[in-house]
């Protein structure tokens, strides 16, 4: 009778419960009237409900629990019955008269419990009889529950050491044997479930089996609770016996669950002392068993144990835990040729975590693990499996997390080899992890060798790997990554200039392989890092004799020049221009005129040839002017050339306002505050006048095209320049000129064609206020401003 469906099952359960309750009712009546005969009759009938085959384990459990409760009452009754003079031995026989085996055995176990408590027979004999008799139930579910019942009623009655049921010298053995036997039989029944019933119900069956697994596992728990099971007993008897059963049952679900159970229920120190035996079982398990999870959990437990107290660490050394685990994993991987790479990697990852916890001082162990992993990976090629890659990341992150120091990790010679086997995506992830670790811990990486190794590790970020173009790389992610690299470059620092130069060369070598997309991110930090070196080299006593081959600012600048050139190919002319200007300024500080001139030349060439966008030009010209203004290294000729060029560029800007602003900015090129030889008031005035002309032209153009003259902002700005130079003492700029400019602006503002511009008005007003303020200051300044009327 095949009945599927939850509904039907509910019905069967309800019927079972009803039958059970009815008989329980009659049983209670018999118990109340001390009627042993009826008690036995109705209890047997009640228990007959458990003979059903129609319930799933879950439902059967519900029925079982009800019967269990009733049996407790019956047990009490039996106990009273013996007090009333009924011999327990007779009772023990009497219940065996029941014709049906299942009720008979439940009753037998129940009386057995009373029998042991009576101590009329040694507990071990009764237990042995019970566990033997239970063989009569060969049906997996019914057998498991019956034996579970036996286990339940016997738990507190084992002839354990110190228990009131303790027997002769061999008592622990008896207790152990009983539990082991019950465990073995239960496991057999449990495994057998797998092979009964039609193949199409495999999934359902596996689900049912997993619902029942704790019944089996409970026995191991009971074993672990036996006082008398000390390390020796565990090592000599318990573990070998349990493992024998686990290995021999050849069942995937059971092996996986029970191995885990063993690991979880017995104490850590037992595992440590029996590692060899325990590990020896792993290669014998079925190939489909998820060994990696189980072994990982073992290593996790041991790691935690090691972490719990430093006192236990010598134990680990004493039993050579690492080499045993290492061997075992090797064997498992060897034995299970079909194990997915994920499994192997997970195992290595766990082992690495373990050794990092237990032997933090043994880098060679960690390296050994990585080496083994490389060996395994080498047979596989690049990883495709997502989860395996994740595990690799975990594996590679573990040493970083532990040591918080990439320098230590770089000592692991196999570390980079492992990185070889991950795809470029993962390589990037890993590289990010490494960089973040460096950032977080502010790790000093101070030699070129280490830098070389490091960049080899993070090459996923440095360049495109395997030539694969990743078009769909997220732009934000890419920026994030490259910014990280940039930050990393800034972290590299060594006070020894020779070494630092080497570091820079190493970094340069790597980043130049990065291609046009990366260079704009990586070149600037390198440039600034180099400039920092230059400043270091400028130290007062720095190497006066210029030892052959030693690092000089010149050499650095040469390198810089070449480095910045690489941006041409990107192309990133604006960036290159900025960097040239930075370098020029640094060369200026180093008093290297030709170098500075060269940098300017490069910047000008870029300006002329590469920067065509008018807005970019405006920015560039202002940068050029700003930098040039601060240069003091140039001789008159060079300076003239550069200044002249700059002024020329300014006048050729496209938009009039831009032109105007660039030109008046140029005025500063001829007036450098601290240097008297660079104060050419006439040319300043020329620039300003030219700016005025341009502003005027802009006004007119505006008037012609739009019918309004537009803002007076430009005039106000020029006015400010006038005031500035006037104040600086440029004799070419006099009060009259300022006065006439003010009047011009005022007139403009009042003209009909002027469109109102509050910002310009405010700007003008505050400029006038400033002049007013200066006038009222009195003294020399006040006197100077006196002629200006506002």
């Amino acid at each position, binding site marked *: 009778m095949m009945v599927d469906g939850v509904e039907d099952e509910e019905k069967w359960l309800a019927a079972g419960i009803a039958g059970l309750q009815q008989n329980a009712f009659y049983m209670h009546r018999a118990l109340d009237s001390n009627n042993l005969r009826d008690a036995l009759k109705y209890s047997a009938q009640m228990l007959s409900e458990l003979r059903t085959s129609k319930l799933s384990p879950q439902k059967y459990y519900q029925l079982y629990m009800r019967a269990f409760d009733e049996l407790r009452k019956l047990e009490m009754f039996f106990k009273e019955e013996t007090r009333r003079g009924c011999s327990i031995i007779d009772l023990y*026989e009497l219940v065996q*008269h029941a014709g049906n*085996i*299942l009720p008979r055995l439940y009753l037998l176990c129940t009386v057995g419990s009373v029998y042991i408590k009576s101590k009329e027979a040694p507990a071990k004999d009764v237990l042995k009889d019970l566990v033997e008799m239970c063989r*009569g139930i*060969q049906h997996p579910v*019914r057998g498991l529950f019956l034996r579970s019942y036996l286990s339940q009623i016997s738990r507190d009655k084992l002839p354990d050491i110190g228990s009131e049921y303790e027997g002769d010298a061999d008592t622990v053995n008896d207790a152990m044997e009983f539990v082991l036997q019950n465990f073995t039989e239960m496991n057999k029944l449990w495994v057998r479930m797998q092979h*009964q019933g039609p193949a199409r119900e495999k999934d359902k069956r596996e689900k049912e089996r997993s619902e029942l697994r704790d019944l089996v596992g409970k026995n191991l728990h009971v074993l672990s609770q036996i006082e008398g099971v000390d390390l020796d007993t565990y090592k000599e008897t318990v573990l070998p016996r349990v493992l024998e059963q686990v290995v021999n049952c050849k069942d995937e679900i059971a092996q996986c669950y029970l191995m885990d159970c063993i690991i979880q229920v017995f104490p850590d120190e037992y595992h440590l002392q029996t590692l060899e035996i325990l590990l020896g079982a792993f290669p014998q398990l079925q190939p489909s068993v998820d060994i990696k999870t189980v072994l990982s959990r073992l290593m996790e437990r041991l790691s935690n144990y090691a972490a719990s107290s430093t006192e236990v660490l010598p134990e680990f050394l004493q039993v050579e835990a690492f080499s045993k685990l290492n061997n075992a994993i090797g064997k498992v991987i060897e034995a299970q040729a079909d194990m997915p790479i994920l499994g192997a990697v997970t195992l290595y990852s766990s082992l690495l975590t373990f050794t990092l916890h237990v032997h933090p001082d043994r880098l060679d162990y960690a390296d050994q693990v990585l080496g083994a992993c490389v060996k395994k990976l080498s047979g596989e090629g690049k990883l495709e499996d997502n989860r395996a890659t994740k595990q690799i990341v975990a594996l590679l992150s573990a040493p970083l997390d532990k040591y918080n120091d990439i320098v230590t990790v770089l000592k692991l010679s196999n570390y980079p080899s492992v990185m070889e086997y991950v795809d470029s995506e993962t390589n990037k992830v890993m590289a990010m992890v490494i960089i973040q670790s460096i950032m977080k811990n502010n790790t000093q990486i101070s030699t070129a060798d280490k830098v070389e190794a490091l960049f080899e590790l993070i090459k996923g970020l440095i360049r495109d790997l395997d030539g694969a173009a990743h078009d769909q790389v997220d732009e934000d992610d890419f920026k994030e990554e490259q910014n990280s690299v940039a930050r990393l470059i800034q972290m590299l620092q060594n006070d020894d200039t020779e070494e630092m130069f080497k570091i820079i060369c190493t970094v340069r070598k790597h980043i130049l392989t990065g291609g046009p997309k990366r260079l704009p991110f990586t070149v600037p930090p390198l440039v600034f890092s180099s400039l920092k070196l230059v400043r270091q080299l400028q130290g007062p006593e720095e190497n006066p004799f210029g030892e052959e081959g030693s690092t000089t600012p010149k050499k650095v600048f040469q390198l810089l020049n070449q480095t910045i050139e690489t941006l041409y190919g990107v192309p990133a002319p604006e960036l290159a221009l900025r960097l040239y200007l930075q370098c020029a300024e640094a060369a200026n500080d180093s008093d290297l005129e030709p170098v500075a001139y060269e940098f300017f030349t490069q910047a000008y060439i870029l300006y002329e040839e590469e920067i065509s966008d008018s807005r970019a030009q405006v920015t560039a010209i202002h940068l050029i002017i700003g930098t040039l203004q601060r240069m003091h290294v140039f001789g008159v000729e060079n300076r003239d050339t550069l200044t002249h060029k700059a002024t020329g560029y300014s006048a050729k800007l496209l938009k009039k306002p831009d032109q105007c602003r660039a030109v008046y900015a140029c005025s500063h090129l001829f007036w450098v505050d601290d240097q008297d030889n660079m104060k050419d008031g006439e040319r300043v005035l020329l620039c300003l006048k030219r700016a005025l002309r341009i502003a005027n032209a802009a006004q007119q153009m505006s008037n012609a095209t739009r019918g309004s003259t537009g803002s007076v902002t430009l005039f106000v700005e020029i006015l400010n320049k006038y005031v500035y130079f006037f104040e600086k003492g440029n004799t070419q700029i006099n009060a009259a000129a300022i006065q006439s400019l003010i009047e011009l602006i005022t007139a403009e503002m009042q003209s009909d064609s002027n469109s109102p511009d509050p910002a310009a008005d405010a700007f003008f007003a505050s400029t006038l206020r400033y002049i007013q303020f200066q006038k009222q200051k009195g003294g020399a300044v006040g006197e100077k401003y006196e002629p200006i009327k506002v």
Partner: protein
Amino acid sequence: MNYLIGAFKPACNISITFADGKNRKQVPLKKENGQTIMVPLFQSQENISGKISIEPVLGKKVEHNGVKIELLGQIEMYFDRGNFYDFTSLVRELDVPGEIYERKTYPFEFSTVEMPYETYNGVNVRLRYVLKVTVSRGYGGSVVEYQDFVVRNYTPPPSINNSIKMEVGIEDCLHIEFEYNKSKYHLKDVIIGKIYFLLVRIKIKNMDLEIRRRESTGSGANTHVETETLAKFELMDGAPVRGESIPIRLFLSPYELTPTHRNINNKFSVKYYLNLVLVDEEDRRYFKQQEITIYSSCEENT
């Protein structure tokens, strides 16, 4: 009894009492009419003695042609109703013909009576022992009174009592080996044993051990065989696999067994069998029947 006699209005009442009636063990005995009465229990070669008292009714005198008591061992076949075969018949004359005026008592004794067979109440046959008192009368019929008693003969434990061990099976389908610890069991004995599964290719649902009684009566063409299953004891629930060993422990005391009887007076035999039955999921039965001997032993009463 008295009521029945009263109904027929016999001339006198006869009562039979045993000499050690107060101390002797009484056992239940099922009568033909279904009633169970308690009767004394004897063994072979015991002395059976007691007293008969005859009391005329209503003070009348009773004329008779003599008073006798017989001890009869009878076998009664139900299909041959009315025919008793007396395998034992002993007679004691108690009185010569005469008249009885008042209650009169006669002692009687059968010493060391051979009673080789045990009382048996079967489906088709009955073996009984009875004391029969007859007051012979020429007219009006004789007055007869019966007193049943039960005979049980204890046998000492057999000196040879081998276990029953056997391997049976169906080729490539099922091979089992079973063992019962003895071949002869007393009535309160326990059958201990085990079944070992050597090969299991069928899906077994359960396994029972049955105790069967085979009663055969008559001989030759008139043989009647009656088989009853007295016990059906489940040994195993579910399907075992190769290598499993299932224990047997069957207490005989709850069942109404008798000793094995072999060819009692050429009239009948009662034999016992242990029938091991395996039932598969299609309710097919596979069984193996083995004879065991049941005997009564003094042990069982201690």
